[in-house]
């Protein structure tokens, strides 16, 4: 089955693809034992630095190591150029869309998007209506999930405009690889990624209220039991900012302060890694102990920046996703550089009928689901699972979209049986503040199971270092 897929390293005829020329030679001349040794050493490195991922509901302790693969995903400068321009374009459009949706709603009035798709969407936050925020940027940190199906075609699988995670793996994977394979880096011109925290810090500072040039920035985490806590601590440390929880902050006369050993200190920018619902118990979920009572008041008064902004979820909603090409054209008057995966919008009768008929061949996703939960991969599912999902879709079609099962590209991966192809995707991280920028690289996620197309770390996926070769 795997031979039908585009492979990142080899052409169909077995020839090595150009970006892998040097690496393939090295791999070929390296003994398996040496790879095993490197693999074990990598495992040790990650265990030592404590990179763990908390899994909800997993038995036997809450921490787990995400499998790291020692074979890099290599992308040529030319390929990266497309991706880079494509994701920047996409994020600019996403931000323009968000600004519009919470202000004039021109795109709804134009009829390009059915207004009810936005207005009745749970991700649409009335709390944001009429609020002006610096540079009109809502999604300051965006993760755009990209898959590749052939040498020419990249699809955007999903936009993440809420609190995309995984960037710490991009950084740590690179560090581990540089320790493990210094020779390989000497032979390749791999674009560096380690300045990401610096760019992130600049981005956050650029959206401080009233252009404050020396803002106090904090990273707000739900706490150490959150699945991405390691990343929160890591990024805070890399940027030299405080890692705060809701209990560390309070609101006083419209400003946000943190409790420090020297008394209250004003906070200007909050890089929050906590969902909208938990930000302010007075405005959102009243049972949330994670948030800061009064935060929304300070935010709406323009006294604090929240990154990403509240209400960004309306842009990465899977139902809105189908309109992304139109959104790009509407706001930027440009043709989309990256394509959408052909998507069946199950609100439409024809699409629904087709999807119900052909569910065995389709990937069906819940509109609001994430992390690989609430989704059906038709070809990899049992008849019973398909039947169950069909019933769910029938009950509430507008809650689902369907896509053809994509021929995700594969990349050689170190597994028990040696080196074998496994499916991968790519999540570059786009930073938007005064400027929109992206570091050359991203998180390559790999499905470690043979034939599996689910790359989510919560579902057993692993990660790879992603090399963008400089030309």
């Amino acid at each position, binding site marked *: 089955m795997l031979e039908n897929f585009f492979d990142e390293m080899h052409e169909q005829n077995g020839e090595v693809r150009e970006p892998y020329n040097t690496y393939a030679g090295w791999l070929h001349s390296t003994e398996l034992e040496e790879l095993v040794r490197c693999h074990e050493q990598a495992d040790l490195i990650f265990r*030592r*630095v404590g990179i763990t991922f908390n899994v909800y509901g997993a038995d036997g302790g809450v921490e787990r190591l995400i499998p790291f693969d020692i074979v890099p995903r290599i992308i040529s400068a030319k390929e990266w150029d497309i991706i880079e321009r494509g994701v920047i374009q996409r994020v600019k459009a996403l931000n323009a869309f968000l600004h519009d949706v919470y202000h004039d709603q021109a795109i709804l009035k134009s009829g390009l998007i059915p207004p009810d798709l936005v207005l009745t969407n749970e991700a649409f936050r009335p709390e944001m209506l009429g609020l002006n925020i610096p540079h009109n940027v809502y999604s300051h940190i965006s993760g755009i999930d990209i898959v590749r199906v052939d040498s020419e075609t990249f699809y955007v699988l999903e936009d993440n405009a809420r609190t995309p995670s995984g960037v710490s793996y991009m950084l740590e994977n690179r560090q581990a690889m540089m320790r493990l394979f210094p020779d390989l880096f000497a032979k390749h011109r791999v674009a560096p990624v380690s300045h990401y925290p610096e760019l992130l810090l600049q981005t956050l500072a650029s959206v401080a209220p009233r252009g404050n040039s020396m803002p106090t920035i904090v990273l707000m985490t739900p706490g150490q039991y959150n699945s991405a*806590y390691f990343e929160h601590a890591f990024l805070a*440390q890399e940027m030299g900012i*405080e*890692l705060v929880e809701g209990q*560390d902050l309070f609101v006083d006369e419209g400003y946000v302060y*943190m*409790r420090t*050993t020297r008394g209250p200190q004003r906070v200007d920018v909050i890089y929050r890694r906590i969902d909208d619902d938990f930000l302010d118990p007075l405005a959102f979920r009243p049972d949330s102990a994670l948030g800061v009572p009064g935060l929304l008041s300070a935010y709406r008064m323009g006294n604090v920046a929240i990154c990403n902004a509240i209400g960004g979820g309306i842009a990465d909603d899977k139902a809105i996703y189908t309109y992304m090409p139109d959104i790009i054209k509407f706001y930027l008057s440009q043709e989309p550089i990256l394509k959408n995966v052909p998507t069946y919008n199950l609100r439409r009768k024809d699409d629904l009928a087709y999807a119900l008929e052909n569910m065995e061949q389709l990937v069906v996703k819940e509109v609001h689901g994430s992390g690989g939960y609430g989704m059906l991969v038709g070809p990899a599912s049992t008849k019973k699972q398909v039947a169950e999902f069909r019933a769910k879709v029938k009950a509430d079609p507008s809650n689902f979209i369907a896509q053809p099962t994509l021929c995700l590209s594969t990349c050689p991966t170190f597994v028990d049986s040696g080196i074998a192809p496994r499916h991968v995707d790519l999540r570059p991280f786009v930073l938007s503040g005064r400027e929109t920028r992206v570091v050359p690289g991203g998180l390559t996620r790999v499905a470690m199971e043979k034939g599996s197309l689910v790359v989510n770390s919560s579902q057993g996926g692993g990660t790879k270092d992603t090399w963008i070769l400089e030309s």
Partner: protein
Amino acid sequence: MLGRAADNLFWMAKNMERIENVVRLLQTGRTSNMLSDNGSAGDNIWEMPLDICGQKDAFLADYGEVSDGRVCAYMLSDMNNPSSVRSLLSNVRENARATRHFLTSDLWDCINRTWLSIKDLSYKDIQRRSIDDHLEWMIDRCYMFKGVLSGSMRRGESLQFAILGQCIERADNSARLLRLHSANAEKNKTKQGNLQVRDYYRSMVLLNALNAYKAYRETFHSSIDLDKIAELIILHKEVPRSLRACVDEIADILRVLNPTASVMSEVYDLQYRLDTIQIAQLRRVGLGHFLLDFSKQMDEISMNIQTDFMMVQ
């Protein structure tokens, strides 16, 4: 820095110090077990760890009788015992995890590795490998923690709050041990028999648990006696585990952190008391009484540090 982070660092180091204290006590017990005299001494040395951490009732409810093996099991690996090494270390790691980004990777690595080595270790596993080796290894890890803490951390607030926690725990432990020891001595005074010898061994237990035997010999050049031990442990600032040394260090750190903090006055009070006290006089008012008072004052200071610096609500 964040008040909550300071609080975590404070507890991280405090708990690590407590681990060392527990392990030393167990080590001392194991050593005196080897002396035939002790078995008939009446006061069971294995009750000390339970008394020190205030877990005797809980222990008796779960384990029935006091014996060396049971106490070691309870104090090393029982997760139901909040003062067991395993429970404490799990807390240390949680504290460290919550403030990961304030720690050097060396320090985190040290804590994390220690935890990974014992987190799945049952008492049976420890027995299989040798209890004494395990205790010695634990002491090594405690020293490594202290070494990495003071050797790798920036000389900033993080380090200072950690050392504060360490000093407070250390002072508290010394005071408790000395109090227990003097109470036991009091109790046994009336009994007849081989008192001299047993007294000697009991005192040895105390000095070893406080790692102060050598210091005693160097300071006094004379035979072991309770008054002198008390003087050493309370007043001699050159002994790292003496109350005086701990309180001085606490005062020095707090002065750097904030000389006008309200807790300063209590610390100065305590320093003044230690300055003016005389051991002979203490004998009259009651050593136990003084030490109990001291422990209470340390608790107060500890609480005030939390309100002054950590904005604990």
